[in-house]
């Protein structure tokens, strides 16, 4: 069981990220012209790697 609710440690990872405002909700069409491009622009500006899986 690897759910984020499986252990308190897992839940704490999400909770800490949420508390640190590091989970950004994107309301938009990710296949549309704006949402994913906006995320991509932010990541490029911050030189953050993205790995697809």
């Amino acid at each position, binding site marked *: *069981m*690897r*759910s*984020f*609710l*499986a*252990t*308190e440690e*897992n*839940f704490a*990872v*999400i*909770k800490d*990220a*949420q*508390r640190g405002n*590091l*989970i*950004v*909700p*994107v*309301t*938009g069409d*990710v296949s549309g012209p704006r*949402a*994913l491009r906006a*995320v991509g622009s932010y*990541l490029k500006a911050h030189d*953050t*790697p*993205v*790995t697809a*899986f």
Partner: protein
Amino acid sequence: MARRSSRSGPDGARDALGAASSSISSRTRRFESAFADRRTYVYQGREVDKQTHLGFDLARSRHAHRRGQPRPYRVRRQPRIYGNCVIIDHGMGVQSLYAHLSSIGVKPGDVVEKEAQIGRSGMTGLAGGDHLHFTMLVNGQMVNPIEWWDPTGSKIGSCGSCARRGNGMRVDLAGRPRRPLPHPLCVDSGGDRSGGRDAGRARQTFRRGLLEARDRSVEPDGTFQDDNFTSNETEYAEFAALLEASGPRGGAYIGVGPEQNFSYMVAIRPKISFIRRHPAPGGDAAPDVQGDLRVVGGPRGVHLALFSLPRPAALDAHSTIEEIWRAFPTASGTDSCAMKRPRGGQGAVGRTHRFALSAKDLSQIEYVSRAFFELARRFITVVTIRMR
């Protein structure tokens, strides 16, 4: 590229394809995969995905039945997993799709006739062998194509319009012969022997059915509650384990799966995450209420209790998941308890983040709370039984 664990269409020749769905006969082909089949995809020896197959894979396309028909169809193309792909727009929201072609004999915007050759079968795109992936779309929704091949299910073209071509009578389920009705797509072929009455009736019925289907599928006010609290990816926990074992670490996470995002994030530990959130009813970008509840909710037991039942006294931050599963089915709760949750949530969220929740926000919180209250006990009971 990932491959399917079950190969399809290994013996199919690269045959010419007819230009309309009704020209494909189930009697001249072998099905490699049917509509709504479940598939497993394997990459480098590991299972990476499961999907539902939204079409038919035909191993053979030789000797396809074809009918002459002057009605024109407009051609469209779509790339991606389908490789070389042709979509024929039949009008009125009906389209047929032919995928994995080795070559395409038409171009977007062409108007093709019934017997026109539109391409040859192949294995371009995500295909494990030479075959034709064929499906039908109604208003953009993929539907079981077999219902569009032949109105009788017996012989191709056995409709009133095509009967003059020797397709003969059709029979009903009791084996009694019936006078064939015109196929909706054949009503303009000139083969109707009823002076146009049958053709006109069939055309009207066909169009009325499409309009009714469209009206049934559109939400009355254009908005709807689209969070159903479930995931369409039942194996995501196993996939999260693979990610944890050998997946990437850090960086940015971008995910659209409402249920699996957090488990993937635990496995990857990204520095920042972007997750798609469904717009609230009415299209407003309401506060991330569920996210805020995670912050203010304390340990897991309290977090779960925010959505459903009071936290059982025996649970604390060190409780195992098995203990949580066992504790909630015996916890007491009433409907009024669930109804209090939105007000409690409003206070906690408001105090911590100073959100001024609107009536729509409160309605959303109440919807989530009620759903968890009504479903959580039943769901947890089922899971507990399975764990024993």
